[in-house]
Every structure is written in structure tokens, then in C-alpha cells.
């Protein structure tokens, strides 16, 4: 693959890298005939982002080696921390860099970033990559009952009220009102936290469709990258979401690029209590079906049952079906066995976070009637 960017495109590309860097530690480069896709997923698999730059975005774009069957299947994974420094100084990059060439040759194991700068300086960075299955989330937005569209500015103004340290926020929507508040885990700081709530009228959105009232909680940190990208390009952001526990998708579209961030949402405590036994049931079929949830084809290599075991460990806490991870069946993937479709608990389900669950529970419980939970966690309520 060989592509060339000039001037402001370099800046936009750099901004995309910055937005992706908020998500994960690895960057997937996936050149296809639709353009160059940059993707990332976080370690807990609760957040995924994809920027697709169409060939029109580039001054020049070619997928070479069309002769081989494996063409277009150069799928490489780069370390984010080795790519990010190349686009470190974005404010001046469009002035200092006249042209940027990115090339991946079939024979080597490196991606070459070449910056042709002012005064005839050429900087060449070659970044070694790891060959890897492409990462791809399939999120069917049609299935989402709720759709909001707004200028990036509006969303920016909404999240501005939350401190940078804020981990998660809750978005509540009804046909009459949209509100955003910070979601706080239990713990000692609970009393020291500032609770922030903001309410908006649906009129403020360019497009507003809320079929089901919903309360979704998702990570804010991973979202900020996309929002600042959209804000700097003055692009409207579309949200697709459903009930708590289902993923939420933020997308931005332009003539030459598309960007998507998909975040897992915390399962709502009401759901958890009302149908505790049912929750695990629908997970297995959904994992197989690529139809209604996110599937992230990847070569993470975890066998399917591993994911299911993890689900059973925590059936009451998280909706285990969201989003699923699976290996993509692309042109060359006929060899990929279907059984390698795996399922992963995306939201905060990684091992290192297991310890957090006891501290999170009090907050989940605070909206419920589950006395046991409250006593167990020593949460004091004035009404008790």
C-alpha cells in the first residue's frame, strides 16, 4: 500500500491518531479498496474506534500487488506509542510538513512514514508491525431504537462540565428530555465527589429519535478523542444506542472520511434485578449471530468458551453479550473456522478490574431495592 497526504490532510490524519490513542495501545492499519482504515480497541474490549479515510482523502492512494490473492490483506498492528510521536505536534504540522507518505510493502515487516518537510528536510520513520488479522466491529445501527444527531460543539459543551478525571457518564433520554450526569462508583470519594447533571431539550439536536427511554453509562475518556476530532472538523456526531448494556455508537461522517467509536455500556441495575436469571440466557445465541450486536473480528485468539466462562462468572453485573468479538470472515478468511468466533465481556471485564467490582456494587445497588446488597456493602441511606 502506498498513500500520500498533503497539508491539512496530514493534520486530520494526525488528529485521528490522537483520537485512537485515547482508546487503545495498538493501532491497526487496514488498507482496502475503500480506503485506509485505522482502528483500535482497548484492552478490556469495552471501547473500539475506527477511522476510515477514503481514497479521495489522499493525494494519492494505491493498493499495490493486485496480482497476489492476498492483496489488500496486509493487516498490520502497530504499537500506538511508536506512531503517536510522529504526529506529536499537531498545531504546526500542516505548516512544517508539506507531504506525508505512508507505505507498506508486502515484502517487509515495516510501515514507512515519510514526512517531506519544509527546507527540503525529509524525515523517514519505519515502524515495525506485527502481522495480524484485521480488527473490525460490525455494529448494526438499524437495530438501535434511539438516534441522536448533533453538532460536535453541542456534545463538546455537554461533556465540558465534567472534569477530565471523570471516568463514566450516564446519558438519560426520554422523548422530552436528554440529560447527562456523572456516574460514580462507590468508595470513599463518594461523598467528596461533585455531582453534575445537565439537561437539554430535544430541540437542541439536529435529529432526535427516542423510541425507548434509556439510561446508558459509558466511558467518557475514550469518547473525548472523537469529540475533539469532530469539533475541529465541525462535523456533526450521530449517536445510536438502545437499552443499558447494549453498546453505544458515536459516528462522524464526511465525504472523505468516516469515524466511529463504539463503547460498551454498563448494564442498568434495574435490568439486573428484574431479570437476573434471564440475563445469561440470550448471550450464547447472540454471540453466534453477527446480526444485532457489535462483533469485533480479531485474532485475539481466545476460544469461545473462555468468553462464556467469564460471562457466567459475572452474569449479574454485566450484559455479557455486548459487544462480541469474532474473527472476521473476509475474502481470504475461508480458512478461518467459524468456531473461532469468540465472545468477550467488554465493559470493565478484564482481570485487572475484577477487584473493582465490590467497590462498584454499592452504586449499582443504590438504585435498587436489594437490601442485601446494601447491607453487604455498608451503604448508608437516610431512608433506611
Amino acid at each position, binding site marked *: 500500500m502506498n498513500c500520500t497526504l498533503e497539508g491539512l490532510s496530514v493534520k486530520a490524519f494526525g488528529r485521528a491518531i490522537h483520537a485512537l490513542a485515547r482508546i487503545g495501545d495498538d493501532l491497526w492499519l487496514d488498507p482496502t479498496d475503500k480506503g485506509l482504515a485505522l482502528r483500535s480497541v482497548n484492552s478490556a474490549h469495552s471501547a473500539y474506534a475506527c477511522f476510515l479515510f477514503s481514497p479521495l482523502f489522499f493525494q494519492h492512494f494505491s493498493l499495490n500487488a493486485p496480482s497476489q490473492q492476498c492483496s489488500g490483506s496486509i493487516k498490520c498492528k502497530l504499537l500506538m506509542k511508536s506512531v503517536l510521536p510522529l504526529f506529536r505536534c499537531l498545531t504546526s504540522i500542516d505548516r512544517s510538513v508539506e507531504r506525508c507518505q505512508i507505505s507498506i510493502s508486502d515484502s517487509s515487516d515495516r510501515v514507512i512514514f515519510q514526512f517531506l518537510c519544509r527546507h527540503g528536510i525529509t524525515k523517514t520513520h519505519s515502524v515495525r508491525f506485527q502481522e495480524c488479522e484485521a480488527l473490525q466491529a460490525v455494529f448494526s445501527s438499524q437495530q438501535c431504537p434511539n438516534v441522536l444527531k448533533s453538532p460536535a460543539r453541542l456534545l463538546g459543551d455537554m461533556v465540558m462540565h465534567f472534569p477530565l478525571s471523570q471516568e463514566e457518564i450516564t446519558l438519560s433520554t426520554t422523548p422530552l428530555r436528554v440529560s447527562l450526569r456523572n456516574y460514580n462508583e462507590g468508595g470513599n470519594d463518594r*461523598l467528596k465527589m461533585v*455531582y453534575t447533571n445537565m439537561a437539554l431539550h430535544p430541540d437542541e439536536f439536529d435529529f432526535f429519535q427516542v423510541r425507548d427511554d434509556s439510561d446508558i453509562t459509558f466511558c467518557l475518556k475514550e469518547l473525548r478523542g472523537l469529540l475533539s476530532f469532530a469539533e475541529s472538523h465541525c462535523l456533526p456526531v450521530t449517536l445510536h444506542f438502545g437499552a443499558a448494556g447494549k453498546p453505544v455508537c458515536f459516528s462522524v461522517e464526511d465525504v472523505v472520511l468516516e469515524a466511529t467509536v463504539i463503547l460498551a455500556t454498563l448494564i442498568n441495575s434495574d435490568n439486573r434485578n428484574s431479570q437476573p436469571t434471564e440475563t445469561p440466557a440470550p448471550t450464547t445465541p447472540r454471540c453466534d449471530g453477527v446480526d444485532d450486536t457489535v462483533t469485533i473480528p480479531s485474532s485475539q485468539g481466545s476460544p469461545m468458551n473462555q468468553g462464556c466462562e467469564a460471562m457466567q462468572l459475572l452474569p449479574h453485573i454485566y450484559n455479557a453479550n455486548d459487544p462480541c468479538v469474532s474473527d472476521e470472515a473476509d475474502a481470504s478468511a475461508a480458512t478461518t473456522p467459524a468456531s473461532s468466533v469468540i465472545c468477550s465481556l467488554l465493559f470493565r471485564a478484564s482481570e485487572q478490574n475484577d477487584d473493582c467490582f465490590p467497590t462498584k456494587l454499592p452504586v449499582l445497588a443504590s438504585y435498587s431495592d436489594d437490601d442485601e446488597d446494601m447491607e453487604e456493602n455498608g451503604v448508608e441511606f437516610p431512608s433506611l
Partner: protein
Amino acid sequence: MKFRGKIIDIACLNHFSRVVTTIAKLTKTCVLRLTPDNLFFVLSGKVANGGVSMWCELSQGNFFDEYQMEGVSSEDNEICLELSPENLSRALKTVQNAKSVKVKLTKKHCPCVTVSAELPTLSSVSRVVTHDVPVEVIPRRLWHELKEPSVPDFHVSIYLPPLKTMKNVVDRMKNLSNFLVVEANLNGEMNLKIETDLVSVTTHFKDLGNPPWGGGSEGGADPEGMAEARVDIRRLQQFLMGQQVTPTKAMCNIVHQRILHLVVLHDDASLQYFIPAVA
């Protein structure tokens, strides 16, 4: 106990927010004391905060368009709340362009100072944001710790040079030493000194002027004689960093080898900051 205030004027809002930000730069927690006429931000000099104390006084009429309060009782018509000025500052900063901001004492999950703002929008309906800043209500038996500090019987009082200049000097000196000696006399001269094994640096200021305090301390004292206080440089730096706007007057009083008393006067607010001298 009741308190509610409303700010409509955007200049007042900005000013209030600047004052709170200044306080936030000085201390992690402080006491907000509300009386019918004034608001005070108070930090009493405890060992835990390095012996530093602070007294900031605002006249409510200069900030609030509406202001109602009902204290603990009719004799003690006051409310004292402990809070993190950083939280309050952040809440106020995000509502800088609000049409109106209400600040009130509420009982939520815990006692809170609720800042609720009506933000302008493009549509006809405005956006509402509320920030609940948790506070702790200070019982009356602890109020005696929150009395206004009396102006110490200082040896020298002097106007400060522009705080920006002073900040630049102190910032550089901080790289060299942890302690700084402030010395001044009644002849308008002030020196900032650091002394370490390797280096001694002094910055001299002159013709600063001495505020007239109406007789008192200077009776017959030698105008050239220096009073000095050796202070933790971080405290002084914090104070200088926090100053958001050029004050009407800034001065410092020195009780020889005991206290550095910094006073900043604005039209509608005053701030006193006491840094204890160290040996």
C-alpha cells in the same frame, strides 16, 4: 439554615469565579462562612496546612443580585461550611457564559452547595446544569477557630512590587532553594533572598513605598533597619500563582522572624494570607 444567592451579571460571575479560583490555588480545603452581608473564605492556621492561614472577605452585594440566608439561629446568623474550593471553582468555570447562576445550600446525598446555571442555547429552551459540590457543615462549637485574624503587630509594612515580577523572581529561586528570606524596611526597600551552600541570590526592590498605618509600629524605628522572615518558598509561590488579576493594592507586613502577612485589596474583595516564618 438556608442560603440561596443568584448572580445574573456576567462580570460579577467572572469575578466571583476568579476569586474562588485564587482560593483554590492556595488551599485544598477551606471554610466558606456566610453572613448576611459577607462571604468569607477562611483557612485557619493549623499545623496540618503548614501553619498557613487565610482570610478572604467578599461583600455579597458586589457579587450577588439576590442573596438570602438564614443562619443557625437568630443570634448566630451565620453558616460555616467546609468545602474544596477547587470543586467550586470548577463548577463556576464551566458556567461562565450562563444567563444566570444560582448558588444554594441543599441537602442531597450529603449537604451540598449546589451551583445551578441556566445556559444560553440556540433554541428557545435553555440548558440547565447543576453541580452539587459536597460540603460539611461546621458545628457552632468549632466556630471560634474561624475568627478574623487580627493584623499582627508588624515591624515593617511595605507595598509589593508588581506580583507578576515577583512571581518570576520567586519561580526562579524555587529551583535553587526551598526557603526564601523576605526582608524589607521602612524606606521602601525589599529584598528576596535565597542562601544555599553553593549560591546566594538576592533580588533588590526599591522605592516601593510604605503604607501609612497611622502611627503605631514605626515610632522612632530605624527606617533602614530590615525586618525579615524566612518562609517556605512553595507557600509564597502558591500565593503569587493564584493571583488572577492585578489588585488595587498589594502589600506585605513582616513581623521579624515570625510572620509574613500578605494583603491583597481589590475593590470588592480582600485577601489576607499569613505565612509563618521558619528558623
